[in-house]
């Protein structure tokens, strides 16, 4: 097969952007994706089989068959888990990755999020660090992500917004009923509510129409293609240059290394299951935090017996996601208006500055509730089954509001991805074994966040409330997975440098949520996108035509 300049592994949020940036600069690229390309017509709006409720499987991959992982529980017992089980920690496997079916909240982190350790000090037992880059370094690339991929919303009502040079490219969607109920209440509490940022067209943008406000959004592909992901923005542009080839249903097995210790390409199983090689000048790993770590660990060679980039046993460590906490409020009037996407209003007042807490988190109302989601959200004193449960469903489905948010997760080095010594996937490759939990201070922050959500709901007129969150026994690093190939200046305590380049091998890059030093008190995808633009920029800048400038 023809040698190319760059191989990119994973056509998700980050991989799609990298492929586009390199292809537009004139580099030849092969973009690998283990999943398929779904179209809006493939979205069956199935409440039981989508990317959020997966009891009958993941609509957008991976399949249950042949893709196990191993989860080690708090007591130290290992369990083989399937992609449709929550503890698998899945994101997605398709062109677009998570961005085909995500909720599309489009958050910038705050300047303090890049300086958590120097702002607060690291809690004992945590692996909290500052990033080697600052918010200001990333700002232009947040802007690029917002404009190229397309974000609607309006930060102007909140003084806590991160510094920015221009407003978002699209106005927010009109308020839904929850927004109207929650906004005045937040203001009475002295908070600064605003219409949250979304990677979703509120007006025609990028040659596609606006959101039609349906019931099935988060977890589903948008049937009118108003949700903006890599599959309907950057990837088509990359392919349009003629410099990028997308190879789907192709799983990359390992990064190949020559005897000088530099990458020479990848080996992969093609769509008919044959093992092939694709040679390249550089390799970019953008397989999402858990699979990126696994791919590096599976890339063993004489020079790198413990996997690529893993000289100091850092690959796979500091696995993070988000501990979601909040509250449900029950009202004596209808709160539900059947207007998607549902999530509409947020506050950033609680992200930083609470004495005793290392950060905090954003709080927002939840995505539109499907009946199946309500089953375990009826008031706490409801019997778990029987007529009373059915009647509680009828009483509260349209009369409740959920406020929650991603609590700043305090990382530990022991929360990690390693290779399972026994369990293999359909290709015979060792699968990811996930173990450890985040630092307990995370749960202290979460508990405060729940109380804050509860207070907001009460002020909005909830007749009673109940808290959600608690203390999960295992790490929650599925959709928001990050941290496994930390970015840093010190090769002994990080995996990549500020350009997302492996400390160990200068022509291998990890560009996705893996490089996050911490995951902010916000959903992560816009930061993943911004980092992809930033790292691509450096890569293109250092590219000499046949190799990298040293």
């Amino acid at each position, binding site marked *: 097969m023809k040698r190319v300049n760059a191989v990119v592994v994973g056509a998700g949020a980050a991989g799609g952007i990298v492929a586009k940036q390199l292809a537009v600069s004139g580099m030849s690229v092969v973009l690998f994706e283990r999943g398929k390309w779904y179209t809006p017509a493939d979205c*069956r*709006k*199935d*409440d*039981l089989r989508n990317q959020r409720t997966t*009891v*009958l*499987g993941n609509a957008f991959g991976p399949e*249950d068959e042949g893709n196990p992982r191993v989860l080690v529980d708090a007591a130290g017992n290992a369990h083989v888990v399937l992609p*449709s089980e929550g503890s698998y920690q899945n994101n997605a496997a398709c062109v677009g990755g998570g961005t085909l079916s995500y909720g599309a909240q489009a958050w910038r982190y705050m300047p303090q999020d890049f300086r958590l350790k120097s702002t607060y000090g690291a809690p004992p037992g945590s692996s909290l660090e500052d990033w080697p880059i600052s918010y200001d370094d990333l700002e232009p690339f947040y802007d690029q992500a917002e404009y190229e991929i397309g974000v609607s919303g309006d930060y102007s009502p909140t003084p806590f917004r991160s510094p920015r040079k221009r407003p978002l490219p699209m106005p927010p969607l*009109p308020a839904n009923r929850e927004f109207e109920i929650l906004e005045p209440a937040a203001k009475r509490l002295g908070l600064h509510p605003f219409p949250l940022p979304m990677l979703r067209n*509120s*007006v*025609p*943008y*990028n*040659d*596609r*129409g*606006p*959101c*039609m*406000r*349906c*019931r099935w959004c988060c977890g589903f592909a948008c049937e*009118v293609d108003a949700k903006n992901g890599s599959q309907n923005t950057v990837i088509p542009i990359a392919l349009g240059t003629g410099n990028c080839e997308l190879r789907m249903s192709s799983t990359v097995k390992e990064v190949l290394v020559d005897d000088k210790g530099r990458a020479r390409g990848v080996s992969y199983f093609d769509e008919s299951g044959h093992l092939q090689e694709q040679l390249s000048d550089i390799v970019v790993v953008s397989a999402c935090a858990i699979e990126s770590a696994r791919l590096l660990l599976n890339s063993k060679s004489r020079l790198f017996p413990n996997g690529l980039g893993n000289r100091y046993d850092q690959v796979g460590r500091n696995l993070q996601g988000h501990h979601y906490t909040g509250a449900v409020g029950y009202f004596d009037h209808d709160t539900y208006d*059947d*207007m998607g996407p549902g999530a509409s209003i947020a506050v950033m007042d609680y992200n930083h500055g609470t004495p005793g807490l290392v950060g905090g988190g954003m709080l927002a109302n939840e995505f539109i509730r*499907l*009946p*199946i989601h*309500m*089953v375990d959200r009826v008031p706490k004193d409801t019997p*778990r*089954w*029987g*007529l009373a*449960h*059915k*009647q509680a*469903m*009828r009483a509260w*489905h*349209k009369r409740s509001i959920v406020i929650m948010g991603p609590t700043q997760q305090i990382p530990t080095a022991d929360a990690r991805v390693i290779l399972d010594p026994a369990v293999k996937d359909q290709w015979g490759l060792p699968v990811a074994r996930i173990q450890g939990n985040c630092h307990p201070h995370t749960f202290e922050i979460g508990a405060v966040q729940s109380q804050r959500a509860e207070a907001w709901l009460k002020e909005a007129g909830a007749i009673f409330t109940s808290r959600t969150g608690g203390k999960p026994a295992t790490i929650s690093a599925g959709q928001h997975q990050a941290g496994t190939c930390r970015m840093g200046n010190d090769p002994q305590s990080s995996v990549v440098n500020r350009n997302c380049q492996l400390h160990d091998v200068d022509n291998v890059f990890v560009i996705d949520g893996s490089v996050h030093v911490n995951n902010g008190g916000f959903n992560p995808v816009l930061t993943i996108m911004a980092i992809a633009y930033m790292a691509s920029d450096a890569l293109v800048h250092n590219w000499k035509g046949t190799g990298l400038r040293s």
Partner: protein
Amino acid sequence: MAGGVVAGAALAAGCASRGRGNWDFLNDGQAHTLAAICDQIIPADDFPSASQAGAVTYIDRQLARHYRRHREAYRAGLEQAELLSRKLAGVSLSQAPQKSQFEVVTAIEKEQPAFFALVRSHTFESFYGNPRHGGNRDAVSWRMLGLDEPPVRGRAQYDFTKGAQS
């Protein structure tokens, strides 16, 4: 109305709607026991019970598909449930009066917690999930909750038949 009758009627409909004389996984006895448990989890009121809306059809289909891994749990669990019913109520679960069915199912929850948790989840999935899987017949639970069915479409603020201006 006696529980057994409700379940029986629903089961007949379940089979007929699939155009087959048989279940994919269950036998008739198991199907009756399961229907009785499902109907304690979601009993009929002015809206149908779980099995009337197709719960057994849903579970049976998935035991032949996505829930193949739960077959043994169902086989053993339903057998155990029958033993419990004969012990506590003196008859097969689907034949017992409503009040005894409630007591037996309460005992199942206590003595077979893992099995009960499975049936509970699957019953809720069948009743509140998408009708295409054989439960929630005619989207009856969605109507019960007051959701528009079919759902309202095309509420965009812009007419997107015109598409984007490029």
